[in-house]
């Protein structure tokens, strides 16, 4: 089904597969996460209280400051990290953090990716092809 494959204009990293954690909200590792326990901790975030570990995060855009550029690397070293980041748009910090932390990333879609991917769906992120596919 063609409507289950979504093409990104920007891509980085290697192919991963896992459950999607989806919200129409922003993302900053410093502002939004309890990085020790692996959950969204900002009370006003739409994913507050939910674990991001091993999830493919599907969100709207990058927020906040520059700390995420280091934090993804630190989170990856402890295995308390999202499997991939799939955003409508990202800022340089998120891309720099994904590059250092070796976290797969897609950004820039023709549709609102947070509306297109069902929360909890099994998805595959393929940066070489620049696509995210709903597989289950």
């Amino acid at each position, binding site marked *: 089904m063609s409507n289950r494959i979504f093409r990104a204009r*920007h*891509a*980085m990293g290697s192919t991963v597969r896992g459950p999607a954690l989806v919200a129409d909200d*922003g993302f900053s590792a*410093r*502002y*939004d*996460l*309890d990085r020790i326990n692996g959950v969204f*901790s*900002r*009370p*006003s*975030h739409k994913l507050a209280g939910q674990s991001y570990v091993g999830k493919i995060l599907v969100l*709207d*855009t*990058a*927020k*906040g*400051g*520059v*700390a*995420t*550029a*280091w*934090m993804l*690397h*630190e989170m*990856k*070293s*402890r295995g308390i990290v999202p499997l991939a980041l799939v955003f409508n*748009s*990202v*800022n*340089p*910090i998120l*891309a*720099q*953090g994904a*590059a*250092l932390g070796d976290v797969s*990333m897609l950004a820039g879609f023709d549709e609102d990716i947070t509306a297109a991917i069902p929360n909890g769906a099994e998805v595959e992120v393929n940066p070489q092809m620049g696509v995210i596919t709903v597989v289950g």
Partner: protein
Amino acid sequence: MNLDDEEKDILAGKAGPVPQQALRHQIKVGEFFGAEDLVPVTQAHLMADTESLGEAGVRWLEGLAATTAGQRRVRISTITDPRGTDFAKADLLGQTSAMLDLERRAIVAFEALGVAMTNTCINYQTIQAPTRNEHVAFGDTGVVIYSNSVCGARSNFEGGPSALAAGLTGRTPRYGFHLAEKRRATLRIQVAFTPTSLNDWGALGGVIGRIAGNYWSVPVIEGIEGAPKSDQLKHFGASMASFGSIALFHLVGLTPEAGQLSDVAATDLPSQRVTKADIEQLQRSYHSDEGVDVVVFSAPQLSLYELSDLAGLCDGRRFTVPMLAVTSPQVKPDADRMGYTARIEAAGGNVLSGMCFYQSYAREISEARGWKRLATNSAKLVNILGGYGYRPMLASMEACVDAAVSGRLARP
């Protein structure tokens, strides 16, 4: 990406493994954003507090620093954002020896790489402001938005790894705000109220940041009366960058690229009005309690003028809850010399330097000291600290000082 001969040599490892690794990182990021080449930069500003770095980040830095001398030094002036502590005040913050040890290791590594430990997020006030069209690689979003907007310099948000890479190669990928076409306004904001207090300027920046919404948005703002001061635009920009991830704004008739609206904006740009009520609503939305556990002035670090104002408000007062004022290592000696530090401390306050509150293990500080309800005049700080378990509240410097005395914060 198109590389010149020197860049090809760096990529081939002829300058050693550290610049080679740095350039590989830059190419990865540059290709992600479609950069055609690299642009030479004159300064780098590096955010690398140890809470962000963690053990993994410090080990990574130590790996670079262990490289053969002569192959690991930065090529351009490379300075640091605030550290994760003020070693002289670590007990006050409840920081552990493990945190301080990690901090010391990071400093040793940075110094081996030739990085100057300026430890400031107000380098445009204290070290050297960039000039119009100067391409730089700055970290700390408040530094970038001020440098781009008020100085007319050209920088993207450069996180620690990328700012360090720029220091090591003397270049950065040419995309985003290095390109003239990306600096044109994408939305028009008409402001019906010109703030005076720093918290109101910060709240206005927050409102505009929320409207603008993402990094690639460039608001052009009309209606500001008079000429804002550097500290006012510091809070305005830092908050806009924090709430919206915004890296560039224009103030018509005030900032260097927007002598008039048509210099930066198309005639049909969508427009939105921001009123005093919007600014008040943002501040009221954070007022969750009347009690206060701690008062913090930080984010960005305070200028000498802010410390002077604060000292004036502290005269004759006696604080019943902890009050922290955080400044840069460049400003602190002057504040000491002018007697501002002594006047703040006579009231029971504390002046810290070289750190910033939210970059210093804020969650652990809260747990160690029992600080939850925090009053500040920094809109940026209230935006950040909710995720760290605080109930931050935004008020004027005067109201915050009153709260340090009474333990209660008047409703805005």
